[in-house]
């Protein structure tokens, strides 16, 4: 039945776009919101029969086989959550036709990402990746001003490079594997482990995904795109799209299809570390709030890639945990950016100060988000970073562990700088009349802050119930948690 996650939104989009008058258009936000909340609810309960019956629903019609394991639930949850936040914030900024367009595009990215998570086939993965990408080009440019168009165009052009790499790699893989289904490719790669062509194909595919993830040095589109896009789109981009299109695909393919080898691990860890440092260092001198958040995303994605590259079950669990946490706190920070932008009309930090007094909810939630990002206990970000660093140490990657730990200081440095400039201090002249953000935006901020705190405080529950089972490689961690689970093909 999990195929419904794709089918329902597709049918929904068709229905609301039927030329039946304004009524259906007005219904659209409720439909989308219901869909997102349903997905959050379903993914929270992996034992529901929904996930385990009728898994071959689509196969006869579309030759699309479905792959659902515990990792998928974390992804579905993240997707539903961030889509919902983006929708709620976006509703406030857009009216009439643009709003309707926005909801349509949102639903398309939703379909694309769900399908990417569900797909058990490299080519399907690629197809839906492109669906998501195309929808996001338009989303970035939704305001149709010059900057937005430039950001969208840059993303489009660099994505094109990624598409070329992915397609070329797919062609090569098809050549020696004869199929693009995960199990077939995995066994073909296992049989041709010394084959340079196979290695080249895998390397190319990974490079394409790294571009999508925005890992240094494949990251250059990220700051422009995130800054140019409206904040409610940035929530979506930074919170989930880059991560599903890039990071999730990477995690899934490296673990289940390509398999680990020392060269891959070394290069992933190195790139992760470079991302962490370059992103953090570049974030320090930024003057634009959103641009700083973009570099922060690069840095945080570095942690996920570093954890993935380490390859030990615990490190991968940490990477998955950080994936979810990053989705929440980065979505929260961009929500705050949306609130600031809405009230003051700018996101340039030079022109802003002392907003905390006027916008207490925004200021407070942003402190929670930044502390979580910097890895301050007991917030959620602390646990995921801690697990990654601990796992690195346990895997005898002492240099990486120490460097990752030190980089937390840089994170704190640029975030505290941001907080000081933006929310603390004396109120800038001309800002006397600003108010707290609109209730809907504040609600989203409080919701996300509550999730960050709750996940931080209830981390043993979250870790044991969702994160550790989500790790397809978990076998050895059972002595840590008492839970053993292996991913399975349905």
């Amino acid at each position, binding site marked *: 039945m999990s195929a419904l996650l794709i089918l329902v939104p597709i049918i929904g989009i068709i229905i609301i776009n039927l030329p039946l008058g304004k009524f259906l258009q007005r219904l659209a936000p409720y439909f989308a919101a219901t869909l997102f909340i349903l997905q959050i609810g379903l993914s929270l309960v992996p034992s529901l029969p929904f996930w385990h019956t009728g898994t071959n629903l689509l196969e006869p019609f579309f030759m699309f086989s479905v792959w659902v394991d515990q990792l998928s639930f974390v992804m579905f949850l993240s997707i539903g959550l961030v889509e919902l936040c983006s929708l709620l914030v976006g509703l406030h900024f857009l009216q009439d036709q643009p709003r309707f367009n926005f909801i349509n595009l949102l639903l398309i990215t939703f379909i694309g990402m769900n399908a990417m998570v569900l797909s058990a086939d490299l080519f399907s993965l690629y197809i839906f990746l492109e669906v998501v990408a195309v929808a996001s080009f338009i989303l970035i440019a939704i305001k149709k001003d010059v900057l937005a168009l430039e950001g969208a165009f840059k993303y489009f*052009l660099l994505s094109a*490079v990624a598409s070329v790499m992915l397609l070329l790699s797919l062609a090569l893989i098809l050549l020696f594997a004869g199929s693009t289904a995960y199990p077939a490719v995995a066994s073909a790669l296992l049989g041709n482990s010394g084959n340079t062509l196979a290695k*080249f194909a895998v390397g190319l595919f990974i490079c394409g995904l790294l571009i999508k993830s925005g890992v240094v040095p*494949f990251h*250059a589109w990220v700051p422009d795109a995130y800054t140019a896009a409206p904040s409610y789109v940035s929530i979506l981009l930074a919170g989930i799209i880059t991560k599903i299109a890039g990071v999730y695909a990477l995690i899934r393919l490296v673990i289940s299809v390509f398999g680990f080898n020392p*060269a891959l691990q*070394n*290069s992933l860890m190195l790139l992760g570390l470079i991302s962490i440092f370059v992103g953090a260092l*570049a974030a320090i001198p930024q003057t634009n709030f959103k641009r700083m958040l973009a570099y922060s995303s690069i840095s945080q994605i570095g942690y996920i890639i570093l954890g993935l590259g380490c390859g030990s079950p615990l490190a991968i669990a940490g990477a998955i945990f950080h994936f979810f946490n990053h989705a929440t706190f980065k979505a929260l920070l961009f929500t705050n950016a949306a609130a600031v932008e809405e009230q003051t009309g700018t996101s340039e930090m030079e022109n802003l100060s002392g907003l905390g007094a006027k916008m207490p909810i925004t200021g407070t939630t942003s402190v929670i988000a930044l502390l979580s990002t910097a890895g301050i206990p007991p917030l959620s970000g602390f646990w995921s970073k801690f697990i990654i660093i601990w796992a690195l140490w346990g895997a005898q990657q002492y240099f990486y562990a120490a460097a990752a730990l030190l980089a937390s200081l840089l994170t704190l*440095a640029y975030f505290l700088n941001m907080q000081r400039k933006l929310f603390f201090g004396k109120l800038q002249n001309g800002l006397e009349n600003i108010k707290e953000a609109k209730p809907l935006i504040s609600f989203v901020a409080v919701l996300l802050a509550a999730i960050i705190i709750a996940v931080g405080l209830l981390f043993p529950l979250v870790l044991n119930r969702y994160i550790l089972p989500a790790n397809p490689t978990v076998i050895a961690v059972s002595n840590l948690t008492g839970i053993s689970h292996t991913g399975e093909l349905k």
Partner: protein
Amino acid sequence: MNLLESTLALIVIPLIAGVGALFISNRWQRAQSALALMATLVSFFITIILFKHNFIYSIPWAGLGINFSIRLDHLSAFILLSTGFFALSLAIYCSVFLKDKNYARQFYSYLLLSLAMVNGAILANNLVLLLFFWEGLLLTLFGLISIGNPDAFKTATKAFIIIGISDLCLMIGIGLTGFIAGTLTMSAINLALDVPAGLAFILLVIGAIAKSGCMPFHSWIPDAALDAPLPFMAFFPAAVEKLLGIYFLTRICLQLFQMQAAGWAGITLMTVGAITIVLAVLMALIQKDYKKLLSYHAISQVGYMILGIGTGVPAGIVGGLFHMVNNALYKSCLFFTGGAVEKQAGSTNLEKLGGLGKAMPITFACFIVAAVSISGVPPFNGFFSKELIYDAALERGTIFYLAAILGSFFTAASFLKLGHAAFLGKNQTAAANGGNAVSEAPWPMLLPMLVIALLCIIFGIFNYLPIKHLIEPALGEKLLEGHSFAGFHANVLLVSMTVVVLLGALLNHWLGVRASGSGLKAVDHIHYAPGLKQIYAGAEKKYFDPYDIGLKLAHWVATAAFWADRAVDWFYDKFSVGAAVAFGQGIRRAHNGSYVTYLAWILVGALLMVTYLCW
């Protein structure tokens, strides 16, 4: 009152009176002095009653072998009696001296609290209990010095640090002793001086001799002489600290440890004593302030006591204890005369004094008695105690005897100078006193002086009184080996040597006065002798003050630590931040928005990565 209650009253009465004194305003000066007089009188009375009684009382207190254990024996009863006597004298003296002093309330309070602490420390039969009272005394000492003139706080800090460091040694020593002996009860400890116990011995001795003001723990005393209230000097460095320190030293040497006459411990003590005698008296010689000159003698005289006890022979120990009593007598008398001069003449600077003998005849007379006593002129008390010490020192080594006799020479010379400069010569004190003629001190100040001066004579001529009744019982028959040390000294050679040395000092003074034409400059030929002159100049500038040397060392260490800290701060505050910002700016500049650049990064990155993966 039974014995126990009386003994505890010695601690409790001054304690309550001391706390009570804090609540009496300075406007009620009579009430303050009446309270102090009452408390000290009662204490003195109790010490007389307790005298010659013996008992030990112990109840569990803090656990871990730390009992509230007190012991009254001949030694402690004798020290208690002396302390009580001096406290009473001081209370009488202060009733006039502290008039119109704004620190009167605090002084009385600290004085009485000190008395409680001293009594407690003397009675304590448990090392930790002793330490408790001993440290309590450190607090009141700090208070007493710090209420003096505006500079006194610095001096108080100095005293606090010096005594605090030595008390730390004492504390470690007590821990070590308790560990080695397996008990903290003093009457149950009797250790041989082997390797670990020897260390404990040294640490305990440091605590004891530092309390009595021996070198090198002396340097706060001359400073306090100028800064602290004068009665403090008469009571603490002159009397009580000597009594307490030497009392504890006696306990350590005779009871806690088995100090052999020929062992290293005795030699060490004698060396410390001899050095203290000579160096301190040399410093006393050149002082130009009445009180400061006396303070150096307060240090020098400790040397005799430590030398005497360090000899380990009966004559020396009896002499040391006798000298302790004698010193407390004449030194407090001398400080009392100093106080009288300060109050009546308005200054203690010898350059402004002179010819006071006519105006203050009784004070002058007391000064003469005390001065000849301290110089060791027969038949005053100082003569007899010093002769005993000379005798013992000669037995242990000629060098110690020579140091002691040299100390006597300079002591005599410096008191000739002091008496000459202050009481004889041209009368120029009217100027120092703001134009008013100087008159004799009031009776309450004269009375303690007179009583003590009289005691100096009695303890001299009838020296069997203190020796037979106070000192020899305190040491016990066994130690004395049946000897008795009362009476005129039998060794004619030693006595004639003493007389020759004293006459030499007189001759030296006469020559000095003839050469320089003034009593004050009578010792200038020693002060400015080649070689000595430079050393004196250095000492006056405190180059040899262990405290100042320590402060300088601490300052260097602190400076080094400061710069190390600056460097660390610079690394964190400037370097790492600067480096981060510089890197950040560099990366920011690299993101120039050029699509070609970005594409190049991607292609180079992909090329490197794929190449590495395919390798």
